[in-house]
C-alpha cells in the first residue's frame, strides 16, 4: 500500500520466559487511518504483537516505528507513545479497575495531566460516543458483558489516541452486540483514527477490514486487501482459515451465472442487491 504507515515493525522477535516463541521475524507496515484486521487462530501471537505496539512489551529482536520514529523505551517517550496508541484488552473484567463507570473512564485523561474541566468533557464525549451515557451512575458490577466492553472502549477513547488497538473486540458477544461494536469501530475510524483489531472470525475480517494481516504460529504469513486474502486459496489452507460465507455464495452463484460479476459483496445487503438486479435482468 502506498499510504504512509503509522506503525511499522522490522524483524520483530519475542519469546516468553518459558521459551514459547510468540513472535518470529514480524515485518509489517500498518497504513494510517485504515481499518486493519489481524486474522489468525488462538495462540498465533496477535495479543503479543499488540502489546508491542505501545511499548507494553519490549521485543527480543527487531525494531518498531511509530509515525516514522523508532520506539524508545525511555519513561516519558513511552507515556507519549501510550497516549497515541490505545489498547482495548480482550477481557473487560481485567481492564475495568473502578466500580464507578465515570471514574473508570476518567483515569486515562487524568494521567495525561488535563484539567478537571477537560477531563469531564472527555469523559462525557467518550460516553456519548460509545452510547453508555445512561450508565453514568451505575456501578461497574451492575453492567452486562457487552456494556463493560463499551466502557473499556470509552476508557481508551477518552485519551483521544491516534491508533486504537482492539484485541478480539467481538469475543463472547452475541450477533447483535457484535454488530454494535463493529459499527462503533467504524464510527471511530471515520474520525480519522487508525483502528486495528484481532479476530479469528473470517466473516468479520472480510466485511469490515480495509487491509488484513494473516498470522500463524507467531509469523505474519500473508497480507493484503480482503479480496486478495480470500482469493489466495493456498494462503487460506496454510493458515487453516475458512472462506467468508458471502464469498463462497458469491463465487458459486456467479460461476453458475446467477449473479453479476462486478465486485464481490461486502455485506449481505450487497449480495441481495446483486441478486435482485440479476433477476430483474439489469
Amino acid at each position, binding site marked *: 500500500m502506498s499510504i504512509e504507515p503509522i506503525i511499522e515493525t522490522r524483524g520483530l522477535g519475542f519469546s516468553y520466559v518459558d521459551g514459547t516463541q510468540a513472535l518470529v521475524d514480524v515485518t509489517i507496515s500498518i497504513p494510517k487511518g485504515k481499518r486493519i484486521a489481524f486474522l489468525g487462530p488462538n495462540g498465533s501471537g496477535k495479543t503479543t504483537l499488540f502489546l508491542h505496539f505501545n511499548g507494553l512489551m519490549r521485543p527480543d529482536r527487531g525494531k518498531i516505528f511509530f509515525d516514522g520514529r523508532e520506539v524508545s523505551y525511555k519513561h516519558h517517550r513511552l507515556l507519549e507513545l501510550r497516549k497515541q496508541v490505545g*489498547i482495548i484488552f480482550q477481557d473487560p473484567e481485567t481492564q475495568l479497575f473502578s466500580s464507578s463507570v465515570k471514574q473508570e473512564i476518567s483515569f486515562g485523561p487524568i494521567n495525561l495531566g488535563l484539567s478537571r474541566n477537560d477531563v469531564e468533557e472527555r469523559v462525557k464525549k467518550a460516553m456519548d460516543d460509545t452510547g453508555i451515557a445512561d450508565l453514568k451512575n451505575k456501578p461497574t458490577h451492575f453492567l452486562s458483558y457487552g456494556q463493560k466492553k463499551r466502557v473499556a472502549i470509552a476508557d481508551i477513547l477518552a485519551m483521544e489516541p491516534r491508533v486504537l488497538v482492539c484485541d478480539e473486540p467481538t469475543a463472547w458477544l452475541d450477533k447483535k452486540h457484535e454488530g454494535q461494536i463493529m459499527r462503533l469501530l467504524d464510527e471511530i475510524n471515520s474520525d480519522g483514527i487508525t483502528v486495528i483489531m484481532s479476530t479469528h472470525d473470517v466473516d468479520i475480517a472480510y466485511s469490515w477490514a480495509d487491509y488484513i494481516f494473516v498470522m500463524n504460529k507467531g509469523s505474519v504469513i500473508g497480507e493484503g486487501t480482503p479480496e486478495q486474502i480470500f482469493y489466495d486459496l493456498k494462503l487460506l489452507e496454510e493458515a487453516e482459515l475458512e472462506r467468508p460465507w458471502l464469498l463462497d455464495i458469491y463465487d458459486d452463484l456467479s460461476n453458475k451465472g446467477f449473479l453479476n460479476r462486478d465486485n464481490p459483496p461486502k455485506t449481505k445487503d450487497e449480495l441481495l442487491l446483486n441478486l435482485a438486479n440479476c433477476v430483474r435482468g439489469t
Partner: protein
Amino acid sequence: MLKIDQYAYINRIADMHPIEKSILALATMVICLAFSAPLTSVLVILFMAVLSILVAGIPARFYLKLMSLPLFFLVTGVLTVALNFTTTSPDSFLWGFRIGRYWFGATGVSLALAGNLFLKALGAVSCLYFLSLTTSMLEIFAMLKKLRLPPLFIELMSLVYRFIFVLLETTDRIYISQASRWGYANIKNTYRSLGQLVTNLFTKSHHNSQMLFTTLMSRCYQGELNVLENSYTLSKRNLLMITFVETALLVTGLWSCGYIRFL
C-alpha cells in the same frame, strides 16, 4: 450481602450527601449506645426502620429479614446476662430451676438489664443497616478521601471492592462448569472439585492482577489511581433536620435516664 450492595445504589436517598447519611447513622448510634434507656433504643429502632423502609424505599420484608439475622447472636448473648446462678436461697428469682447444688434463674434486675442490652444492640445494628442500605461503597470511599485517609489505603479498598465481584463471577462460572460435569455429584467428587475451584481461583486472580497492571500501564499509570471525584453538596435543610432529630433523641435519652426533668 450482595442485595445490600444493590440497594445501596438504587434506594431513594442514594444521592443524599454521604456525610449527611453517615452523621445521621453514627450520631443516632452513639446516642443509642450512650443511654441505657429502653425508650431511646425503641425510638432509634423505629426511627431507623421508618427511614430505611418509608424514606429510602427498602422493601419491608427484606428489612425485617436483615434485622432477624443478628437475632440468634443477640438472644444467646442476652440469655447469659439474664440468667443468674446461686447456691443459696433462690428467693430473688422470679423464675428458676435447679441443677445439682446450683440454682439458675432470672431476677427482675437481670431481666431488665438483658432487655435493655437487647434493645440497645438492635438499635445500633439498625443504624448500621441504614448506612449500608443507603450508602454505596463508592460514596464511602469518596467520604474517606474527604476525611484525608491515605490514598493508598483507599485505592486498595476500592480495588478489593471491585475485584470481589470479579472473583464472585469467576467462582460462579467455574462452579457451573464443574457442576454440569458431575463435579458435585457425590462427596468424593465434591472434595476434588472444591480443591480445583480454589486452585483455579488463585491462578486466575494472579493472572488478573498481572493483566490489570498491564492495562493500567497502557493508560499511563504512574503509581497513583487518580480519578474524577464526585462533588456532592451538603444540603442545609437536611443538616437542620438531622440536628433537630438528634437533639430530640438526645433530650429523650437524658430525660429517661433522669438527667433532666421537665416541670
